[in-house]
């Protein structure tokens, strides 16, 4: 029985293979509604410990083609005033013109320009980051966390990424000392596939 089925299965799979590969760009909206996405930052405090914070409000989406990951695209917009380091006075200072100057630059944005993915879901996402009115190319080291159906009939895919920015590169002149010239970003992004 098994032997008789084999040629049939083989024929079926050949037929499938004969269908020309078409682009299967999947579109995802970042799940900020249920906060399954996080944008965090970490900067040294005097070389001793870290100031860790996050941006509470942001939105965006990504496209991903499992057959051709290089076609993937990401677009994120961050509400700079939503900075939150668990210290209201410090956050007020971070919003001022010493740092993010959120009155003048209420949004930061990231638009990808390229993506490459290797084995195990490790990748590199290139793009333009606009922060404090300055646009610069950045490279984000990424990893696909996972993907699959959720219990509510949707389909999800998640990535995490890290990158390091120099404050001076974005025109932030306030000097926090030699240990605090750079800030590390940690991004955890889960998207819900759109029909």
């Amino acid at each position, binding site marked *: 029985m098994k032997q008789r089925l084999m040629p049939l299965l083989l024929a079926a799979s050949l037929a499938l293979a004969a269908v020309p590969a078409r682009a299967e760009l999947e579109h995802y909206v970042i799940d900020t509604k*249920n*906060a399954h996405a996080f944008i965090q930052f970490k900067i040294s405090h005097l070389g*001793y*410990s870290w100031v*860790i914070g*996050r941006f509470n409000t942001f939105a965006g989406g990504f496209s991903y083609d499992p057959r051709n990951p290089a076609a993937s695209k990401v677009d994120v917009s961050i509400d700079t005033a939503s900075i939150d380091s668990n210290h209201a006075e410090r956050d007020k200072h971070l919003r001022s013109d010493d740092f993010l100057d959120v009155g003048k630059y209420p949004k930061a944005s990231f638009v990808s320009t390229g993506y490459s993915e290797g084995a195990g879901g490790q990748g590199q996402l290139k793009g333009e980051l606009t922060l404090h009115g300055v646009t610069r190319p950045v490279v984000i080291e990424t990893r696909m966390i996972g993907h699959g159906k959720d219990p509510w009939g949707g389909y999800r895919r998640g990535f995490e990424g890290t990158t390091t920015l120099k404050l001076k590169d974005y025109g932030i002149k306030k000097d926090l000392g030699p240990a605090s010239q750079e800030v590390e970003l940690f991004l955890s992004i*889960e998207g819900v596939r759109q029909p």
Partner: protein
Amino acid sequence: MNTSATSAATEGAPPKAERYEIDIGNMHASIQFKISHLGFGWMIGRFNRFSGFFDYAEGHPELDRVSVTIETGSIDTNHPERDKHLRSKDFLAVEDYPEAHFVSTRYEETGEDSAILEGNLTLRGVTRLVRIEVLKLGHGKDPWDAYRRAFMGSTRLALKDFGIEYDLGPAAREVDLYLNIEGIRQAEAW
């Protein structure tokens, strides 16, 4: 000769630990957690309110100790509805257990900048021994004339070990904790 004189003097005065209060006044400390969301992404949160101290004696790790109290109701995952659920009996049951405590029992230096900190964590009324991987960060004077010392720590807890039976799926049975602790040295008279 000098050496023996010095060591005799050192032996004369028993080693004493310095006490550091965790800098929550200017919040140079954070207690974060991370748990998988269905295996696809992360849920990252923090406890906004906590306090504590650590004792540190250079070269005398047996004198080092840590004590931290966390206000469980201050859990914050950047989603108020979820936080409400996390405070409920399904998770932290903060009305019955408003505080979590950690009290160290052993500190062992394993390298120049690394150590293992063991202690009793009381969470949701359950006390268990946990093991925290510690990284020594910097120390020194700050621009306001105080002396600071900092550590990072990480550990992993199984929810069920602390009586949290709510099932978040097979990818989310354990939660990672990240501790970032900067202390300000206190005057001798503590």
